[in-house]
């Protein structure tokens, strides 16, 4: 139990943190265990399912394939950071609610982060583009139809409330 610890500075959802982590601590586990941000879910733990997707300096990445210590100095956005400034639901979260884009909800955090980042570059997507956008995230409940609808709805909300 005497693994060396690495001091690591992370800015998570705008809040600076300094954690002491063993080198092998995955970013996902750091977020959940060290910072108590349990919104990020671990599904497959080998990069396939997309549930653990977070934004690193704005870009979606698998937090199960990153070591926390290697992220020293990075800005991380988790699903908790995708809420509205007033603490209510953010546009993508609101859209998933409006369109029943989730059932059990386990995969949802990865979808919300992925879609939040993607809509910045694709503010007015077609349905086909919306399908492509979520191609790297697995959902076992919904059959994806309502998630595609949620992506389109989120784009609509973003356009209504710039």
């Amino acid at each position, binding site marked *: 139990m005497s693994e060396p610890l*690495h001091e690591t500075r992370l800015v998570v959802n705008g809040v600076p943190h300094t954690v002491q982590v063993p*080198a*092998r601590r*995955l970013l996902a586990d750091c977020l959940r265990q060290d910072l108590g941000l349990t919104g990020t879910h671990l599904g497959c733990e080998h*990069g396939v399912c*997309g549930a653990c997707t977070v934004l690193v300096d704005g870009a979606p*990445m*698998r937090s199960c394939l*990153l070591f926390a210590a290697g992220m020293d100095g990075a800005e991380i956005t988790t699903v908790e950071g995708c809420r509205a400034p007033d603490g209510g639901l953010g546009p993508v979260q609101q859209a998933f609610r409006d369109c029943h884009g989730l059932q059990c909800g386990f995969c949802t955090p990865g979808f919300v982060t992925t879609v939040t980042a993607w809509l910045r570059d694709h503010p007015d997507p077609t349905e086909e583009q919306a399908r492509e956008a979520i191609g*790297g995230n697995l959902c076992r409940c919904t059959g994806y139809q309502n998630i595609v609808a949620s992506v389109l709805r989120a784009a609509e909300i973003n356009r209504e409330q710039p």
Partner: protein
Amino acid sequence: MKPPVFTYHRPETVAEALDVLAEVGHDGKVLAGGQSLVPLLNMRLAAPAHLVDVNRLAELDEVAREPDGVRVGALARHARVEHDQAAVDAVPLLGQAIADIAHTAIRNRGTVVGSLVHADPAAELPAVLVLLGGTMELASAAAGGGPRRVAAADFFLGPLESAVRPGELATAALFPAPPAGSGSAWVEVARRHGDYAVCGIGVLVELDQGLRVGSARAALISVGPVPVPVDLTDALGGQPHDAADWAAAGRLAAAAVDPEDDIHASAAYRRHLAGVLTARAARAAAAHAATRLEGAA
């Protein structure tokens, strides 16, 4: 599903990285994007004693258009190369193939050079490097006088085995620009888009002034331990770019590969795919060449 214990090194310069790699030798493993390595660690299929994280080596974070092609440094992520217009204009096959690598979140982190060094027989980029006749640059503290250069044909030794030696760091890959009058295509079949290909192929076709096929070459993945190069010129040479005997090219490729059964597909099905996809990719590459010639005219 958690990585085993390792000693973590995070050098700030290439020189420092090479010193660490020389010191740890066989027990060291380089961590770049980690999109293949970290799954192996999580599943405990690999347990290196030392991990040398090269993500701070800013000097390797480059995509450079050079007179004869594109130089991709060891820290350039797939997404960066994919969106570098000058790079994909010079070497269109890079953009065509990278679009089929996994998903956005993986391409945002995984590196081109890392994928080459990993040498997965189902990965796209090794075939791209082989098809274009590219080169790898391997630096080491021992070499001193500049990196060792290894041609693509000598770099891929077997499944997950490349020519990188203990103590070496792959610092760059050089992708030669195909000649004017050439076109390329990448085609693959995967169980789901973004999965590793059951069979994949890149084709490079060069047309003459009369828009006839001068030469045609292919490299196939997932049908052998390393990318399989196949010269398709015998099947297509001298024929019109829009009406060549694509099926003959397919037969040539299907005969050249020696796939194996696995849980994803039988050898017979992979061989069938090699034929069908070769015909499809050759046709697309010839059309691409014609479009580029018209664009240049």
